């Protein structure tokens, strides 16, 4: 059997454009791989083989004719199922959208198609991207390919598990409070949350509008650089996307990191951090210093407020963003007999939403409601500014910040699901980046004693994605964590 699925996105693209492999051969290898492992991983919500093969055939024909090929030609891509794909079911992992088929493509999907990428599958997620474990999906619980009894992280757990298992070499996720970086770290992958406004959100189902960003997940740094180069840029359909030139991010992989100063926040290295993670970070520091950077301790004093701030802001926005799922114009509508319109709304939503979504909508509704707005929502917006100012101050002295991506490695399925607050607290190291709108990249930096991947994130100033890629690539060429594959029994 062909092992094309083991190739990186860059190598696949090279094979395809050079004529060494056809797109059909490539997708067949990935389809075979999916057949082999998907039943154990449960990473995928929708995979239409015919549609995948049709795209591949069209690409082969295009190559035959000698037409110019885009940057993603020959690369199968997994799409988190909260990103709209025209004619392909987009459920957000929710019963309420179980049969929703968008009549339009998200901006990033149009960009991927224009670059000749292959939309391979829609991947599982925590319902409406609310969760850190993928256990909140209404349809299935995705398993971590490194240990099938453990979660892949979330909310982009399906995308991460699919890449880690070799079903696709590249995937899109969304990151509202760590939902790309944390699963990337749990699954031993590269995952990037771009600067807020770098990538259009048009067509990504909003969870928290002022925090959400779409970004890439890949096996290696180059894969994320490639996908980001395609999806970044101003979109007239997203007023919050920013009009700033998009470089070819792959060029950043060639840059030198010599002389850069990096900050390691004291607050992100608490005493409760497991020793395996602490040691992995220490090793990274040694490697980076050997590559000519200097690493110093910095303060981000408002870190302890980040989780509370994040959950107020995110849930408040979510309570409004999810109001549209009321069974009137699309999605699930209750079939129970109802007395009036209000009951139609509330029964529909009770039947359609899972518990975590209900909790977040209710806490967010409370935070915005009359009498509580100032103490919750407005207060959180003020602390949010303090959190951003912490970073601004830090960036006066350092070029980038490094920190563990998660205070834990992949935990057991079911371990935290009954204690929402303890689940929230695992987001402590990722949420501040979203509140501040900064870019951050998580990359694999080792394994725990149990053989579970450990991730480190590099956080930059707005629009300094290139610097993050340079640092990540510099580290990656010195190490081989990214080359390992999980043994899936």
């Amino acid at each position: 059997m062909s092992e094309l699925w083991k190739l990186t996105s860059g190598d696949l693209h090279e094979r395809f454009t050079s004529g060494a492999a056809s797109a059909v051969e490539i997708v067949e290898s990935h389809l075979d791989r999916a057949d082999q492992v998907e039943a154990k991983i449960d990473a995928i919500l929708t995979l239409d083989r015919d549609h995948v093969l049709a795209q591949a055939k069209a690409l082969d024909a295009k190559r035959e004719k000698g037409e110019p090929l885009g940057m993603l030609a020959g690369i199968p891509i997994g799409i988190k199922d909260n990103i709209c794909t025209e004619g392909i079911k987009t459920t957000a992992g929710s019963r309420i959208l179980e049969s929703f088929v968008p009549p339009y493509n998200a901006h990033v999907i149009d960009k991927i198609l224009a670059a000749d990428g292959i939309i391979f599958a829609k991947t599982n997620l925590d319902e409406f991207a609310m969760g850190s474990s993928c256990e909140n999906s209404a349809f299935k619980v995705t398993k971590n390919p490194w240990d099938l009894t453990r979660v892949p992280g979330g909310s982009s757990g399906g995308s991460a598990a699919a890449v880690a298992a070799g079903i696709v070499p590249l995937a899109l996720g969304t990151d509202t409070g760590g939902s790309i970086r944390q699963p990337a770290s749990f699954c031993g992958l590269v995952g990037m949350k771009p600067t807020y406004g770098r990538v259009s959100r048009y067509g990504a189902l909003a969870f928290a509008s002022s925090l959400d960003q779409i970004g890439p997940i890949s096996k290696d740094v180059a894969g994320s650089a490639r996908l980001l180069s395609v999806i970044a840029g101003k979109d007239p359909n997203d007023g919050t996307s920013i009009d700033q030139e998009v470089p070819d991010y792959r060029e950043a992989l060639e840059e030198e990191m010599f002389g850069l100063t990096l900050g390691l926040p004291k607050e992100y290295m608490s005493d409760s951090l497991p020793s395996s993670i602490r040691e992995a970070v220490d090793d990274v520091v040694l490697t980076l210093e050997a590559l000519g950077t200097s690493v110093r301790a910095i303060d981000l004093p408002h870190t302890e407020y980040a989780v509370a701030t994040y959950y107020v802001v995110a849930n408040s926005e979510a309570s409004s963003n999810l109001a549209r799922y009321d069974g009137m114009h699309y999605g699930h509508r209750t079939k129970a007999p109802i007395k009036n319109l209000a009951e139609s709304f509330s029964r529909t939503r009770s039947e359609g939403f899972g518990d975590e979504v209900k909790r977040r909508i209710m806490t967010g509704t409370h935070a915005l409601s009359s009498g509580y707005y100032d103490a919750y929502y407005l207060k959180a917006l003020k602390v949010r500014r303090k959190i951003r100012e912490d970073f601004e101050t830090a960036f006066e002295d350092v070029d980038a910040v490094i920190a563990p991506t998660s205070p834990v490695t992949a935990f057991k399925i079911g371990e935290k699901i009954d204690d929402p607050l303890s689940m929230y607290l695992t987001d402590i190291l990722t949420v501040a980046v979203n509140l501040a709108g900064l870019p951050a990249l998580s990359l694999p930096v080792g394994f725990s004693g149990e053989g579970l991947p450990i991730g480190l994130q590099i956080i930059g100033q707005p629009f300094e994605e290139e610097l993050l890629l340079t640092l990540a690539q510099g580290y990656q060429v010195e190490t081989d964590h990214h080359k390992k594959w999980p043994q899936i029994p």
Partner: protein
Amino acid sequence: MKREDVEHVAHLARIQLSEEELQTFGAQLESILGYMEKLGELNTDDVEPMPYAVDVKNAYRDNPDHSPLPRDAALKNAPQLDPEGKFFAVPKVIGEISPNQGKSGEAGS
């Protein structure tokens, strides 16, 4: 959190809760909201709230990009249509008041 507070927030959010859910969600909301109250520790008197992630302004539409959808596509996902397939059909609106439009309500006597 008092029972009526949970009921109130569930009503605002249009989420129906069973008796059992009222108890469990009530306890969970209490613990989550209690944790959020941690923010009260900080003095933020002179801090400008930050509702947006970046300081962009005046994002006007300069490149119109939405042609209307064909009606079939617009209505494709509707749970219910009128018999001619032109309208979204929704549960009969009786007496529930739209804040924006008197015409949507009905007069009583």
